[in-house]
């Protein structure tokens, strides 16, 4: 059965933590630490202390972000193959776990392993669906997580790690702060960023209509559709508020 997302964060601010390298860099994680996590010599939880300014905020983690800490309130993933890799680790993760992976469609609650299912809205593939039992997939989990945040009722969304491009870590091209989604002995692939970018103009338009402000915390992001701001500026403003 599809989950109906409750509006638990009505009028609030939500941070969405995706996989781009800019996220740990914005929070001042040293490059050598990032390199170790990328090379899987350190666990992503080593980032947690650096993210302390948002520990008490409402946070949705995309894919591997849940591994940073239990202060992340909700996880969104869309890829069934990703779930198979992380299934056993998710047992111990206590937050809200949400997916559009079809293996959870029509699963009775006692067999859903605590995962909440939202169908991909076939009538609204891009942008932000207003049906709280569905998400607009937008061809990537990060963009779909924006759909989830809106269902939670938030009015302000802060995007972290929405880079949509490769970055260099010690002269190596890297797409995610946790390393590749591929296995270590598998050929590394660059995500289809061009396809991932297609949904964002529609998200921006829909967000405006819904009265939701979306800010991108990466001034160097390849997504041109949201206002780009510095993390420091936003955190300073929150302190003042």
């Amino acid at each position: 059965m599809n989950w109906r997302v409750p509006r638990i964060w009505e009028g609030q601010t939500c941070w969405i933590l995706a996989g781009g390298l800019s996220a740990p860099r914005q929070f001042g994680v040293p490059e050598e630490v990032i390199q170790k996590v990328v090379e899987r010599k350190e666990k992503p939880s080593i980032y947690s202390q650096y993210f302390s300014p948002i520990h008490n905020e409402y946070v949705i983690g995309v894919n591997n972000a849940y591994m940073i800490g239990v202060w992340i309130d909700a996880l969104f993933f869309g890829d069934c193959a990703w779930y198979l890799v992380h299934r056993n680790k998710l047992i111990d993760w206590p937050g809200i776990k949400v997916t559009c992976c079809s293996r959870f469609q029509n699963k009775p609650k006692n067999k859903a392993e605590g995962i909440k299912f939202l169908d991909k809205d076939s009538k609204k593939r891009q942008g932000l669906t207003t049906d709280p039992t569905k998400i607009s997939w937008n061809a990537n989990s990060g963009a779909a997580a924006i759909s989830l945040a809106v269902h939670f009722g938030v009015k302000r969304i802060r995007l972290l790690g929405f880079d949509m491009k490769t970055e260099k870590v010690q002269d190596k091209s890297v797409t995610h702060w946790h390393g590749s989604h591929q296995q270590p002995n598998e050929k590394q692939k660059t995500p289809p960023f061009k396809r991932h970018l297609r949904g964002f103009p529609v998200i921006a338009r829909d967000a405006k209509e819904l009265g939701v402000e979306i800010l991108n915390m990466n001034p160097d992001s390849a997504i041109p559709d949201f206002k780009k701001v510095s993390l420091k500026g936003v955190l300073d403003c929150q302190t003042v508020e």
Partner: protein
Amino acid sequence: MVERTKTKEKVRYRKIGGGTFRLRNGKIIKPNQIFTAEPHEIPEAFKDTLVALDPAPEEEGPKPSSNKPRFEVQFKGGGWYDVVNTESGKPANSKSLRAEEAQKLLEELT
């Protein structure tokens, strides 16, 4: 506690890395080859050279016994309640709730 059960559902796999191997039914699998097999047909020694392309049958492998979000209703005082993540201590709700609403939210989240 985990329990292990068997399934007869076939899964699509892709062989990664170099080298070939033989399935228990005798079929030879080459590098990058995509094939279908029941999980028990894969020799244990070669499992780490494969990537499952389909959702694996849920019954295969250790099955989580308690893979549920952990929340509980906590009394705040004055007839108000929060639904709190028991590990992080963070309330899931931004505004406090009446007992009935909190119980309903708890059911929705777990």
